């Protein structure tokens, strides 16, 4: 029997069950910093820095202080100059490290691509067996070409199987060593270039343009090359740029004010900080660099690259950063029931006999009819008969097994003169009637009860006699309810999509804890639901794999296509999950949110840092003019020069210190907005105010020992 095979088979084992709390990330190896150094130095080219206005200003400032240090050398001038350059290098280092992590992966991918040879077919028509083939390089393949691939060969490009069936090793892409089946027609026809055919022979129609293959896109993605800035990143850049301009003005306009103050009040003798011409250039540049949001400016692009990288590590390819950000904003999550919310297969959970039949008799008949049924449902009946009713498996001979077909919608066995059938209610009752039997009055009640409990009723009959009903139950995966509760706290509504009837759907929805369900769903219903939600301003995410999912995938704001799915589905979605795990959607949402939170947190931290820097630098510059301003030196820093230097050094070091955080993302636990804001304000806002006071004081204690500084 196989009432459930209309649903998609499970492609991969699911990831660890249970509630995963944290979105983790890779660790940062200190060696990586060292390896990335040459790349970081290369990025000093102003043309490269152009995309990062905050750091460009720091570089211009560094050049300026270098000139000043050469024309008027002093220990102070040179130490400041070195640390200003280090600030730029550290920022480049953050980006280089983030990019470097993807490079190794890209190299492996590229290797797989290079030496592939394609056996191109000149003419291919369905059913044609005459294969007139020429050998060309994989890179020369065009859209619509046909190639043949035999066992042991590498598939030369992305395409669709048009003939044959084969097992394919996709580990080069997915990292999963178990081979998968690819066959023509249906939803498992897509193959990816760079993967290896293990058995049989297939003909593939190429569906990619040269240089735009999956592997090409993946390489671009993991390398972070030509990374497009995401909408929120652009908005943040605008805010950072305007803050930079404000501080630029605050520092630039300080000079005439300082000259006036110096002229009126006098200030002692010329020194490294102040002279008759006002504040020295080195100190002005130092003040500027300390005030402009260098911390977030330095780490912004690393955060973006690392966010994509975290997705890649989870075997998800996002076609754009925009999609990742949209994932964080999702309001509605559409989840297919089978394989996502429930295990792929239903299992027998109860035998319910009709009036006048004993449970034992029903269990016996059910077991007997299922002994040769190799579908998961069939096996679960045998298992249940054994565990709940003590019926052992038995050997039977001379039995005729009746397989399930779409026409009969029944399966069963003819053995020892007994004729047993089990199957869909309508089919079995019809069969019993045709055998001259009658339908017991209580059958309808039992069937309805099973349905309304979310189960699938399988009626068991012996010739003209109905024995009872097997309750096949959808088994909700472990930990799903907790996940949906989390989603609700995050403000995301979950909607279960199923082909079941509304009553069954409602029962499962209730058990799994989803907010809503769409029963007897057709692809059109799905599309209509997405449009309806979007009309109300909501962002919708969904997964899909079939060609008929493609319109809905394209319409959804976040459409995750399964790698096992059709080329049409993969083309329509804006992400591809290489593991083909529909629950991955939940993790994608979390990564999207974490990406935004990391940016917001470091922006807050960066701005909050400025308070302490003012308390270090303002008294350092002007206490000589207005001695009362020394009251502001609450850190009691050693001397004006050491105070300014400490602020500059702290400003540079904090970038390196935060690289791991930028790459890993800030800690994220799914919770409501107020909780998240309170926590992040406390850690990055308040922390951002206090940390530099401590840091600058400590650095001052160290460097005041250097001769020539204090």
């Amino acid at each position: 029997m196989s009432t459930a095979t209309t649903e998609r088979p499970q492609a991969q084992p699911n990831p660890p069950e249970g509630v995963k709390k944290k979105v983790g990330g890779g660790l940062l190896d200190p060696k990586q910093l060292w390896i990335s150094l040459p790349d970081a130095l290369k990025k000093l080219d102003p043309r490269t820095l152009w995309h990062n206005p905050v750091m460009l200003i720091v570089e211009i400032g560094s050049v300026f202080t270098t000139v000043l240090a050469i024309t008027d050398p002093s220990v102070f001038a040179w130490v400041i100059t070195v640390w200003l350059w280090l600030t730029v290098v550290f920022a480049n280092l953050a980006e280089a490290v983030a990019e470097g992590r993807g490079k190794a992966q890209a190299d492996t991918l590229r290797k797989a691509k290079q030496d592939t040879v394609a056996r191109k077919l000149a003419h291919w028509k369905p059913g044609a067996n005459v294969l007139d083939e020429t050998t060309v390089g994989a890179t020369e393949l065009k859209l619509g070409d046909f190639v043949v691939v035999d066992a042991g060969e590498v598939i030369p490009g992305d395409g669709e199987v048009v003939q044959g069936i084969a097992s394919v090793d996709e580990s080069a892409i997915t990292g999963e060593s178990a081979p998968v089946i690819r066959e023509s027609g249906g939803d498992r026809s897509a193959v990816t270039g760079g993967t290896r055919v293990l058995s049989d022979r297939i003909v593939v129609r190429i569906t990619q343009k040269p240089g735009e293959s999956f592997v090409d896109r993946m390489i671009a993605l993991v390398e972070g090359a030509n990374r497009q800035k995401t909408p929120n990143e652009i908005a943040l850049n605008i805010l950072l740029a305007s803050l930079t301009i404000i501080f630029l003005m605050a520092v630039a306009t300080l000079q005439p004010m300082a000259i006036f103050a110096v002229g009126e009040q006098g200030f002692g003798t010329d020194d490294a900080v102040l002279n008759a011409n006002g504040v020295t250039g080195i100190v002005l540049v130092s003040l500027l660099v300390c005030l402009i949001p260098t911390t977030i400016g330095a780490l912004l692009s690393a955060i973006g690259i690392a966010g994509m990288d975290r997705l890649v590590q989870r075997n998800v390819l996002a076609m754009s950063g925009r999609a990742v950000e949209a994932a964080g904003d999702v309001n509605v999550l559409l989840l297919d029931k089978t394989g996502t919310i429930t295990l792929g297969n239903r299992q027998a959970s109860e035998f319910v006999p009709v009036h006048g039949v004993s449970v034992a008799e029903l269990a016996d008949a059910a077991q007997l009819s299922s002994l040769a049924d190799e579908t998961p449902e069939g096996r679960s009946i045998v298992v249940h008969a054994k565990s709940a009713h003590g019926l052992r498996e038995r050997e039977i001979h001379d039995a005729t097994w009746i397989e399930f077909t779409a026409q009969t919608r029944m399966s069963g066995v003819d053995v020892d003169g007994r004729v047993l059938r089990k199957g869909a209610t309508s089919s079995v009752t019809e069969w019993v009637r045709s055998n001259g039997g009658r339908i017991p009055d209580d059958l309808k009640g039992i069937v309805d009860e099973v349905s309304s409990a979310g189960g699938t009723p399988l009626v068991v009959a012996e010739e003209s006699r109905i024995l009872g009903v097997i309750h096949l139950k959808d088994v909700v995966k472990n930990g799903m309810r907790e996940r949906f509760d989390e989603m609700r706290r995050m403000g995301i509504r979950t909607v279960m999509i199923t082909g079941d009837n509304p009553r069954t759907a409602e029962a499962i929805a209730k058990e799994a804890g989803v907010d809503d369900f769409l029963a007897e769903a057709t692809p059109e219903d799905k599309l209509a639901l997405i449009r309806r939600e979007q009309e109300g301003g909501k962002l919708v995410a969904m997964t899909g794999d079939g060609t008929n999912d493609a319109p809905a995938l394209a319409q959804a704001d976040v459409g995750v296509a399964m790698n096992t799915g059709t080329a049409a589905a993969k083309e329509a979605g804006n992400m591809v999950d290489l593991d083909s795990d529909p629950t991955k959607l939940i993790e994608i949402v979390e990564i999207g949110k974490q990406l935004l939170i990391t940016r917001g947190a470091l922006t807050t931290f960066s701005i909050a840092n400025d308070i302490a820097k003012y308390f270090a630098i303002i008294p350092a510059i002007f206490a000589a003019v207005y001695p009362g301003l020394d009251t502001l030196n609450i850190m009691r820093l050693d001397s004006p020069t050491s105070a300014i230097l400490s602020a500059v050094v702290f400003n540079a070091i904090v970038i390196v210190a935060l690289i791991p955080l930028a790459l890993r993302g800030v800690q994220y636990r799914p919770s409501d907005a107020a909780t998240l804001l309170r926590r992040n304000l406390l850690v990055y806002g308040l922390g951002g105010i206090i940390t530099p006071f401590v840091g600058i004081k400590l650095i001052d204690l160290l460097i005041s020992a250097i001769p020539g500084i204090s």
Partner: protein
Amino acid sequence: MDSTTAGVIFVVSLVVVLAAVYRPAGDYMYRVFTGTKHSRAERGIYKVIGVDPEAEQPWGVYARSVLAFSAISIVFLYLFMRLQGRLMLSLGFDSLTPELSWNTAVSFVANTNWQAYSGESTMGHLVQMAGLAAQNFVSAAVGIAVCVALVRGFARNRTEHLGNFWVDLTRICLRILLPVATVAAIVFIAAGAVQNFSSSDEISTLAGGTQTIPGGPAASQEAIKLLGTNGGGFWNVNSAHPLSNPTAWTNWIQIFLILLIPVAMPRAFGRMVGSNKQGYAIIAAMSVIALASIFLLNLSNGLGANTVPAAAGAGTEGTETRFGVLNSATFGAATTLTSTGAVDSFHSSYSSFGGGLTMLNMMLGEIAPGGTGSGLYGMLMLAVITVFVAGLMVGRTPEYLGKKISSREIKFASLYLLATPALVLVGTAIAMANPTARESMLSSGAHGFSEVLYAFTSASNNNGSAFAGLSANTGFYNTALGICMLLGRFLPIIFVLGLAGSLAAQKPTPESAGTLKTYQPLFVGMLVGVVVIVVALTFLPALALGPIAEGLS
């Protein structure tokens, strides 16, 4: 009753009464902003100026209407003053110089009312009434209209229409400003303020000397000067003059009038966006800042620390004895927290930190509660910035009142944030680098610098109060401060309307548990924090060389 108790009762009674009128006044304004009916007088006005009151405007047209109306007003006012000598009721005063006419015209149209002239020795009654007082009405109404357009941007969806500027302007003048100002003027007359058309009378005093008692339509101008947060006094000493602010209780009424509309605007805003809680959040943020400022200013001036007259016991120098030190401090805080700029005491004579606080109040952008309309739109712009940073920290594309804050919105908010500080800092720096400009300073050192910093802060933020001590009626200051007032008023207005346009075009984002709740105390606290930190970081170096250096010496 000692003076401290009196000062506390003064402030507490203001807070209580303002809290009591918050809802009725806000609800009334809400009905004015959203009503669909036109009175006969209004319809007559629309017919005369040729406006279809039902035709709504997209943001660009709304902005052009604001700019065109203001440009015409400036030209009209300029010519009025240039031709004063040939007009009736001139009291024999000459026409004004081009620089002063330009400065004053811009000043009154920009709702600043910076006065580089002395009313009693410069302006005739006709210019005062038909020119300056008229601008007091319409310039206040322009601010409210722009603010209402921004709120419509939040409240409306998928439209380009932000209302009709001419309708908003007419209604605000006729239904809000005119009735309240009329009542207030009568109260002032009853209290002893002058309202006539006579020129000044020379009288002999009992002591045998002579005294000049000025006359004129002062009470009526006084009422709108405060209600419209304009601040331009009929006479040079402004609200310190006994014929415009005769008693301690008129002083209370003056402060009440200053705060009335700005305080009630958040209520109208809450009603318009369909959530009174949002209005309460905004007024809460405004109140926290305002009360802190009033408290600190009272404290600082009451102690009178670090001032020349400290030797005399308290900061009484420059204050009127009928008001006292504390009530004058409260007036000083109210006038700088709004864009009023009326004064009943000399800010230059405040304690160093007190003077610094009045500057800081203006540097905050006059948003607590700010000028009529301009206070609320300023606070909403900062709320947009706060929402952006806070929204990222909760892991969503930031949204405020159901509208996404993305790059276009941030662009307008950032430009708004940038405009005024740029004018203040660049203006001050140019003045300090200019030897001629430096000659206008009466004091030297930090205090002299404060005078200049105050002037540019006041002009760029459209406050109009002066620190005193700076001779501002020079070619340089008239021109430079005129530019600051003009750009400080209309650049932000363009950015506000631009933001309004891009908000109105959006479709709404529904609220969920993941949405930042912008009416909770946490957000209010963060908004206050962002306002204070952003401003402090921008102006700290300048303040350090002025009031802070002076206060710590």
